[in-house]
């Protein structure tokens, strides 16, 4: 199972995006500053935008799910339970994962943005597609929920997961790092070898690298462990 970007280009106004590469099975992180083109790339990969040139080819991918950056853009139902059902899920399962069981009859727009994000993230994860595209999945979440979301992501043991995020504090264990810079997609490679060349690496990773440590992955705990190893 893989997704190939073949000399992909896309333009809208003064913004242009370009990228090539192959996303294999595992968890990929596409990082980059706000406005660098991460969301546009996610929409292209989901087939919601057509590239100007080049192609997105899916091999062995039967189901695709994109989690949009703004959770309110997913809402199509007037109740929280109805919203979960609109994803083709058993509402109780989704509400339990999102810790919103008590809000089943509420209007989705009466949830806070963080709660709505929890709901849409839970629904996207429960659908368990072959290709899971998560656009800023940690935005609007508190630290505890971010950690829980990371844990659920790490439990996904099959398929391709691509996380588009500018998050620099709480991140999941990933297999590959990519970066978007001014519309250009750059492959940094597999983790842990890719970490030193990751330009938007979180400060804790940068600190660990500066200290001579070699973290196994990109989480804060990985940086801490690497520092402990060199310091004894």
């Amino acid at each position, binding site marked *: 199972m893989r997704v190939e970007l073949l000399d992909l280009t896309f333009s809208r106004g003064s913004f242009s995006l370009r990228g090539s590469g192959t996303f294999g099975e595992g968890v990929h992180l596409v990082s980059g500053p706000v406005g660098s083109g991460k969301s546009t790339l996610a929409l292209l990969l989901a087939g*919601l935008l057509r590239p100007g040139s080049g192609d997105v080819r899916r091999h062995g991918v039967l189901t695709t799910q994109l989690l*949009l950056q703004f959770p309110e*853009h997913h809402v*199509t*139902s*007037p109740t929280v339970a109805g919203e979960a059902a609109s994803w*083709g899920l058993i509402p109780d399962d989704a509400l339990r994962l999102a810790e919103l069981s008590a809000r089943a009859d509420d*209007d989705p*727009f009466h949830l806070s943005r963080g709660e709505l994000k929890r709901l849409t993230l839970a629904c996207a994860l429960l659908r368990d597609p072959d290709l899971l595209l998560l656009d800023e999945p940690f935005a609007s979440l508190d630290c505890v929920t971010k950690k829980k979301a990371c844990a659920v992501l790490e439990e996904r043991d099959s398929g391709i997961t691509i996380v588009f995020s500018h998050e620099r504090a709480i991140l999941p264990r990933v297999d590959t790092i990519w970066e978007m810079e001014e519309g250009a997609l750059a492959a940094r490679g597999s983790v842990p070898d890719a970490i030193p060349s990751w330009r938007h690496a979180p400060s804790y990773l940068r600190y660990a690298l500066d200290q001579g440590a070699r973290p196994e992955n990109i989480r804060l705990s990985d940086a801490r462990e690497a520092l402990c190893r060199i310091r004894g």
Partner: protein
Amino acid sequence: MQDPRLRLLSVAVLSLAAFASTVGAAAALVWWLLFTPRTKSLPRPGVLLPLVAIVAATALVSAWGGGAGLSYFFRMTVILLLAAWAYAGTEDGEVLTVAVWALGNRVGFEVGLIAEMGIGGLSVIRREVEQVRVAMALKGIRPGLRTIVPLAVTLIVMEIRRADETARLLVVRGYTSGGKICPRFRTDPLDVPAGMAAIIPAILSALPLSDVFILVG
């Protein structure tokens, strides 16, 4: 047409003419063909065709009941074309400016602000419908009768909420009533002849058809 005053006046007069009679609608259509960018001012087929379909369905019901269905369809389609042209040409703040020019800084500002919010709401609704369409595609929901009601409810709730937020924002910014702006308008050389020509369909729509033939003959 550059001048929003003449554009709004023309569209109001032409719409009334088109609504009043088939002759008026035919004359308004000729005006639309002569003085607008025609098809360039139309929205994409996904927006226009459902509106035409609603008009066609109403016309069919009218014809089935013995009414003038075909005439109704023609007149309403011309009004749709005029509305599409007026909407495409309207820029942010124009309606407020025209209202203040016509009715002054107190009443005009109030009326213009409400109209601006309404027009702004239309473009927001269009964007939200597009978002809902994307959301449905992502969830694998096929558009159908079963999905229309919850979607309509969701969109209405979103609009009510937005209106509430806008009202709160105005209060936070200290708005009570009225305002002050200095209306300025650009006028194209063709605006005045086009505006004057818009009166012709209105006159034709007010005349009995037999009188028109006498006039022409």
